[in-house]
Each structure stands twice: as C-alpha cells, then as structure tokens.
C-alpha cells in the first residue's frame, strides 16, 4: 500500500523536459532547419496563389486580367519573388535531407558545406530565374 501511494505521488511530479531551441547556441544547420519548416509553411499558403492563377485562366480573360494585374503589381512581384525563393530553398533543403537519409554528409565539414550550399544556391537560383523572367518579358518595366 505504501508502495502504491509512493507510485501515485511520483506520477504527479512534473516530468523532466528536454531542452528546447533557446537553450542551444544558434548554428547554421539549426537555422536552416527552422527556415525549411517556415518555407514549407509559406509554400502551403502560396498554393492559394497557384489555385487563383489556374482558376482565373479557366474562368476567362477578365478573371485572368485581374490575376495578372495583381501578380504584376509591386506587392504581387514581391510575393512571387518570395514564393520563388521559398520553393527553391525548400527544394534544395529537401535534397540535403534526402542525402542525409542515405547516411551521407554527416561529417562536421560536410554538413556545414551542404547547408551553406543550399542557402547560397537557393538565392543564386532565384536570381537566375528572375533574370530569365525579365529577359522573357523584354526587360524590367
């Protein structure tokens, strides 16, 4: 009986918690892990933009013109630029995770290099895509 009471008391004691983000020094891999989740969330919301684009095209010229006016505006371009970067960063981060899933690239130098490459690569690819886009449009307007 004494044992039972002791057990019940022990179960009410607050359980130990594992340390969370604020306990650790911020590292690049940690920051990019957080950014991977944030870009994923942004792309989640961004699918509304894709749905609007496709539905407006299916609805007719007027609806498509409304969408084009929005996406061509300053705010629209900023959102689309952010969407491009989020997509490419999430893609490169995903490739990094696929490499890690094969148990490769875990050495200290390798994982830092991979993480930095995904960050620089995503920014570079975003700029390349937008330069191609502006060339396709015949220069900035």
């Amino acid at each position, binding site marked *: 009986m004494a044992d*039972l*009471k002791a057990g*019940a008391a022990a*179960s009410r004691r607050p359980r130990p918690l594992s340390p969370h983000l604020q306990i650790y020094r911020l590292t690049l891999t940690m920051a990019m892990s957080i950014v991977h*989740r944030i870009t*994923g*969330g942004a*792309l*989640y919301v961004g*699918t*509304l933009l*894709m*749905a609007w684009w*496709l*539905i407006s*095209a*299916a609805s*007719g*010229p007027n609806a*498509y*013109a409304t969408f084009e006016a929005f996406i061509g505006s300053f705010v629209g371009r900023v959102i689309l630029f952010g969407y*491009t970067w989020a*997509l*490419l960063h999430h*893609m490169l981060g*995903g*490739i990094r*995770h*696929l490499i890690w*899933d094969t148990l490769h690239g875990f050495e200290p130098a390798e994982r830092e290099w991979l993480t930095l490459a995904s960050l620089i690569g995503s920014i570079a690819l975003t700029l390349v*895509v937008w330069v*191609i*886009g502006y060339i*396709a*449009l*015949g220069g900035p307007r």
Partner: protein
Amino acid sequence: MNAPHDMRTPARRVRGLGPARSGTADFWHQRLTGFAGVFLSIALIVIVLSMLGRSHAAAVQILGSPIVAVIMLLFILTSVYHMWIGMQEIILDYVHDDKYKFLSLMLNTFFCVAVGLASAFAILKLSFGV
C-alpha cells in the same frame, strides 16, 4: 490512465498498444513526394517562365496542352499530399490541446483537398475545353 487504484504494472498497461506497423508511412510518403517534387518544381518554373507576358488565349493554350496539363496535375497532386503531411507534422509538434489539435488537423485536410481539387479542376477544364 494512471489511476491510483490501478493494480496493473506499467508494462501491462502499455502491452498491446503498439506498434501499429504503419508508423513510417508518412515519413516514406514525404520522401517519395519530395523526390518527385524536385523535378516537378523545376518543370513548374519552366512552365511559368514560358507564360510570362502572354495573352489569356496563349495561357489557356499552354496550360491546356496535354504534356503541360499532365505535369501540372502531377505537381498539384504531389505538392498537396506533401504539404498535407508536412502541416500535420507541424500541428502535432505545436498543438497539444486535443480540441485545437483535431480542429486544426481537420482544417489542414479540408484546405489541402480544396486547393488540390480546385487547381486540378481548373487544369482539366482548360484541357478539355480547348
């Protein structure tokens, strides 16, 4: 669960509760859709670039052509499933209250199904309408 008059040992209480033998399905499907998503995302960027500055008629023709339509449908289905798993993971990480957890899990499913169906319907309408 841990009632004071429960005479069973901790091992007896958890025996038979798991595993469900399907715990890695989401993990695997997230890799599967992610891998496909790499190629489909590049294809999406190429398609969008090819449509910049074009008229509505040209946009309809491009989106409705069989190859582009199939690639777009694959992108939509893959990304909607990928983001459904991803958002579910985020919800399970941060939302601990059962009420809000199940509500947000439901909303996640509704959102992903609605966005996916609307986008896919638009592509099919464009494709069959040409």
